[in-house]
């Protein structure tokens, strides 16, 4: 009796942990599995028919419009990331380093895009575009503007957190050690804030790439990848969608792992 109880005590946490992991990873495993599913013989896309490399090797045979939608999403995500990261980093510096009228109000307002429902933001943006006379020009640029807008909050918050954690004694120490203002920034401040900026950029990219609600309202005739998946779902999701899903997953894991490997190698080099 007591032995059984002890066995449960020792293994319960582990077991629960594995269950939680499974809960998180089973959907991803399904996506990976389905990316190798040969659906050409059956319309029932939710059943694994037969293993094939075709989905991966022949983008030419992808469903109509899918490759275009992926390319559009990538372009928008890259542009939105670059602009939002640059603007957001500058804004974060201003908010942390400078005292100005309206600073605390600004600090509060940057949380609004994160806190308000996407559907509200999307529709109000649409109303704005239409009333400003751009109702006929909805498309690439309106999507980009919308994405920069919602990425900006996340960038500011991420960089701000990094920057406020930075001991400003470090900058004074640099100046004390003969570094000019510019040298202090590039040699001390920037390298220390960089991890925050990179994190903000990665976050922006993924936020932009998979946004559906705001994009859908402001896209006009354009179709981004999430919109394509949503549309395709009416008839049955083509297996190629899982290829993109798997690729995104592998790339994100690779970025994280690569980052870790570089960090460990640097540490090892330093310790040697």
């Amino acid at each position, binding site marked *: 009796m007591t032995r059984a109880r002890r066995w449960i005590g020792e293994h319960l946490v582990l077991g629960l942990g594995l269950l939680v992991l499974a809960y998180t990873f089973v959907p991803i495993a399904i996506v990976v599995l389905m990316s190798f599913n040969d659906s050409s013989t059956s319309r029932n896309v939710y059943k694994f028919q037969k293993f094939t490399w075709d989905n991966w090797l022949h983008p030419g045979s992808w469903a109509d419009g899918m490759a275009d939608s992926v390319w559009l999403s990538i372009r928008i995500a890259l542009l939105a990331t670059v602009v939002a990261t640059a603007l957001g980093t500058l804004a974060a510096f201003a908010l942390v380093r400078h005292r100005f009228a309206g600073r605390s109000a600004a600090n509060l307002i940057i949380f609004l895009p994160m806190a308000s429902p996407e559907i509200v933001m999307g529709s109000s943006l649409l109303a704005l575009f239409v009333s400003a006379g751009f109702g006929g020009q909805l498309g690439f640029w309106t999507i980009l503007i919308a994405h920069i807008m919602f990425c900006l909050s996340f960038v500011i918050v991420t960089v701000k957190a990094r920057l406020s954690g930075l*001991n400003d*004694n*470090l900058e*004074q*120490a*640099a*100046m*004390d*050690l*003969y*570094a*000019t203002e*510019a*040298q202090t920034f*590039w*040699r*001390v401040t*920037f*390298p*220390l804030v960089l991890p925050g900026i990179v994190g903000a950029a990665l976050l922006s990219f993924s936020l932009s790439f998979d946004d559906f609600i705001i994009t859908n309202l402001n896209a006009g005739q354009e179709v981004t990848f999430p919109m394509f998946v949503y549309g395709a779902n009416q008839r049955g999701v083509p297996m190629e969608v899982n290829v993109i899903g798997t690729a995104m997953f592998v790339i994100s894991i690779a970025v994280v792992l690569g980052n870790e490997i570089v960090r460990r190698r640097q*540490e090892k080099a*330093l*310790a*040697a």
Partner: protein
Amino acid sequence: MSQVHEGAAAPSGAHARGADGSRDLRLTGLTKEYATFTAVKSLDLVVPQGEFFALLGPSGCGKTTTLRMVAGLDTPTSGTIHLGDTEITFEKPYRRPVNTVFQNYALFPHLNIAKNVAFGLERRGIKNTRQQVADMLELVELTSQAHKKPTQMSGGQQQRVALARALINKPEVLLLDEPLGALDLKLRRGMQLELKRIQTEVGLTFVHVTHDQEEAMTMADTIAVMNQGVIEQMGAPSELYENPRTTFVANFLGQSNLIAGEIEGRDGDHVKVRVQGAVASVPGDRAHSDSGKGWLGIRPEKVLIAEAGTPIDAPGDVITGGYVTDVSFVGVSTQYSVMMPWGQELTVFEQNTGARSMLPVGTKVDISWRPEFAFLLDASQDAKAGIEDD
């Protein structure tokens, strides 16, 4: 990052020497006012070249503000700072031949120890820093740690890196802002000796800010005791301790018994004071007031104590009628609290020579002291100034 112009900030090497060729640090009428209070009030101070100088005072006395103005990290409201004949009052921090060891070390977390130490040299465009860095790491005994990051080191090691990072630039003045505050007692004692050794070895001017009176006395050639933005008294540690001029210095530097008295006036080179019925005389150079009411001061270890009726080896008057209220044995000495007939408790330290056993609580005692050890202060000052309530 390569577009950053290196070496723009080299401090000019050929500084004008003072009239006598010295490079003393001179603060003249230095004042720092904030919106709600004045941190430093018209401070005048000369730190001779090559001296280990301590600015001692409680937190908030303005000592760190003074240091930061010398470093160029704060701008004075008025007054000037000179190094020799060169005025540096408004010079940018990176243009002054002054380096700082910060209270929390402020080591660059993204650079390893060698890079941290080389930082100042590299900013001045000095190319081959390897040998100098190696020498400096050897001086602070961290040669084997050169490739570690600051976070991988202990507090004491980080402190030594901070010191090496400042010293390598051979500044004319090295500022130390409570550099030992974060270390535990044992390490602190070790570092005090180390700092003193290094200062003697390199012969630079050290300005050391601290609130630890023992630390200041151990290391400094000269101590300036600061309180509420002004210097109360300045001098060699023994001079400040033996002959304090204000109640603040008397209490902040060690402990003092201050007994209220009526000053009767000068008599030759002594000043006579009537204290609770007896008359005490204080050497003229130790009397900092010569009329009205005064505080007669005597250090606890200078007070002689004996059981009532037994002889005391002192030429002055014996004060009778006290009794012991508290005894604490601290090894090298025994500390007594003695309640005097006029209702004041005096502190007496007696060295454990073994000549007599400890006096138990309640023992009736007589006390006395040699007149040359007493000092006399103006009674308009608060007798409790400078007592740290901890």
